């Protein structure tokens, strides 16, 4: 039976805050940064009004925010923080420590472009900057998903087979500040999906543990190998949480969302809020008889490479869209992931990279059609004539 819920209107930030309240977190440390700030403003209201029994620590920087979260997580508390862009960059050092200490912190990342020039709107620079840091990363496409994935993030992080921190990405402004209708669970329903946290090896003076020791060449590489295995081994458990939540909510979740992939000859792959635009155009093109499909990743880290490989069988050309750029690299970040994931397949699509939407530039339906037309042209030509295509840019 699907959990009781009600239809409300909330921005992405407020929807995340509502999810965090319903997850009964114990500890929040955060520092204000647009476009994340509304999340923690709302959470501090909940705490100060007695609607959430949590410690809210208004730290003096994002570096301290994540540092405090690491300390709090070691006590066994359920811990949340939120940031964006420069704030994530300032946390960078501690991202690796949070995952390597196997903390179960959940972070909302309201995706925003990195400076310079300073810009408060959406790019995925911040999510990509964290891609190697050992955090599980989920991408929301709309406000409903931002809410749903926040609840699932705690369940994934705290699963004893996982024990890794989780980032929930929501596009800055496009989701963080846009009012959308969504179904919010009744408060009493959420604990049925997410029971209280059962801490693993928390700080306990009766059972002292040394957390964060010095680890040299005689052990470090084994510890990193264990961490690599933990990340790989988390995939089935993440999928199980998606399945349980799908049943709980009546809304379908999985690592990759698709349209038309059953017979697609060309396909477009994207992350975040642009997925809705891409899917709607793909549906229209399919109505005209075009064999086109769309893929969007809900699970970005660990990268769902096996699932992707299955889905792109029979695809001739795949356009991989990146809302960021990796200067000097052979393609932007998602493109490089896809290239690596598909390289050893006997049959694989040709791929090209589309750079779009930097600093909040809209991705219009026309841009998606341009991408489709390029892909179709490359498929007909039998080769990728341009590996890197920028859309929506004045040149």
């Amino acid at each position: 039976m699907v959990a009781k819920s009600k239809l409300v209107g909330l921005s992405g930030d407020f929807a995340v805050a509502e999810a965090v309240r319903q997850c009964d977190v114990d500890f929040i440390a955060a520092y204000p940064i647009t476009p994340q700030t509304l999340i923690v403003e709302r959470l501090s209201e909940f705490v100060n009004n007695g609607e959430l029994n949590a410690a809210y620590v208004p730290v003096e920087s994002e570096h301290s925010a994540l540092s405090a979260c690491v300390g709090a997580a070691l006590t066994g508390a359920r811990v949340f923080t939120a940031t964006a862009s420069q704030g994530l960059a300032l946390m960078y050092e501690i991202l690796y420590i949070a995952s390597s200490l196997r903390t179960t912190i959940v972070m909302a990342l309201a995706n925003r472009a990195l400076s310079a020039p300073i810009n408060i709107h959406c790019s995925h620079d911040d999510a990509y900057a964290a891609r190697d840091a050992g955090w599980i990363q989920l991408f929301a496409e709309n406000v409903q998903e931002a809410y749903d994935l926040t609840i699932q993030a705690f369940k994934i992080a705290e699963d004893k087979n996982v024990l890794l921190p989780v980032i929930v990405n929501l596009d800055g402004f496009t989701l963080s500040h846009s009012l959308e209708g969504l179904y919010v669970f009744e408060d009493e329903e959420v604990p049925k999906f997410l029971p209280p946290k059962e801490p693993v090896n928390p700080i306990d003076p009766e059972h002292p543990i040394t957390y964060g020791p010095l680890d040299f060449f005689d052990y470090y590489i084994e510890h990193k190998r264990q961490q690599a295995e933990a990340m790989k081994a988390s995939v089935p458990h993440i999928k199980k949480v998606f399945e349980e939540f799908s049943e709980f909510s009546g809304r379908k979740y999985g690592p990759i969302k698709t349209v038309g992939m059953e017979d697609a000859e060309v396909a477009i792959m994207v992350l975040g809020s642009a997925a809705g635009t891409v899917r709607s155009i793909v549906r229209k093109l399919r109505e005209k008889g075009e064999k086109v499909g769309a893929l969007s990743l809900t699970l970005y880290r660990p990268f769902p490479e096996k699932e992707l490989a299955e889905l792109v069988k029979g695809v001739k050309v795949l356009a991989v869209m990146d809302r960021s750029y990796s200067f000097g690299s052979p393609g932007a970040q998602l493109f490089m992931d896809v290239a690596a994931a598909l390289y050893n397949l006997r049959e694989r699509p040709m791929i090209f990279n589309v750079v779009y939407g930097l600093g909040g530039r809209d991705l219009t339906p026309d841009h998606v059609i341009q991408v489709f037309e390029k892909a179709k042209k490359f498929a007909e030509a039998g080769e990728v004539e341009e590996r890197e295509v920028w859309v929506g840019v004045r040149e």
Partner: protein
Amino acid sequence: MSAPGLIKTVKEMPREEYLAPGHRLCAGCAAPILVRIALKAIPDPKIVVCPTGCLEVATTIFPYTSWKLPWVHNAFENAAATAAGIEAAFRILEKKRGIKRPKIVIFGGDGGTFDIGIQALSGALERGHDLIYICYDNEAYMNTGIQRSSATPLGAATTTSPAGRVIPGKQERKKDLVGIAIAHGIRYAATANPAYPVDLFNKVRKAASVEGPTVIHYLCPCPTGWRFPPNKTLEVAKLAVQTRAWVLYEYEDGEYKINVVVKEPKPVEEYLKLQGRFAHLFKPENKWLLDRIQKEVEENWSRLAKLAGIA
């Protein structure tokens, strides 16, 4: 402030040890003296947080640990923030799940306190977390090989403030950590020194009796970095006090008190000449710097004596 359990002799200290022998700190290092005494002074349950530094690297080389109580290291600049997170989390877990909240003590070096960690420390002091922050100040980045910090005293030679032909060692004075701490409106702050173990024990015990942040600034003579023989640690520490180069004082709820009133101070040279890091000051061309150090020592004493009402 009359905290319970203040002592008069070292014999009254509890026998319990929380730092196991076999750690890799240098012979003659004053940090373990601090850790052993401070942990005896703080009631159970308690936990320790350390930033990166000598104490951290020398006591936790995996798979070994010297710590008989929970110990947390996060990074270099964030010990106060990490401890603040632990404190606030335990406070809520105490309310929600009845878990007993431990006392939290931080042992940070001068680099992790005066320099890279000052922002996190300031934040934690301002927010009023219940923490005992103890800086073991060996007056340079000893762990990375004796580089100058803002706690390095005037005139000292380090590997990044060498005694050169043109610039003879560090040209800037030491930052006033206790003054900075007090400016946050905290209730208790003090200086301490390994040659005065009873004073150290009582100060930590007072700090532990305060609900809220407290700061203790401990002079931590370093044979390796200061260049004196390892059997001279306490002699050097004592001379720091007897020359007034290190003033033992405390601040309690708005009142200053000098704990060891040095009526007839020895010349500061007595303290400096035991240490290789000051050897260049005894060359005739650097006499002006020696004079400046003596003048600053006297000015600092007068400032504190006035605050303590004994001027």
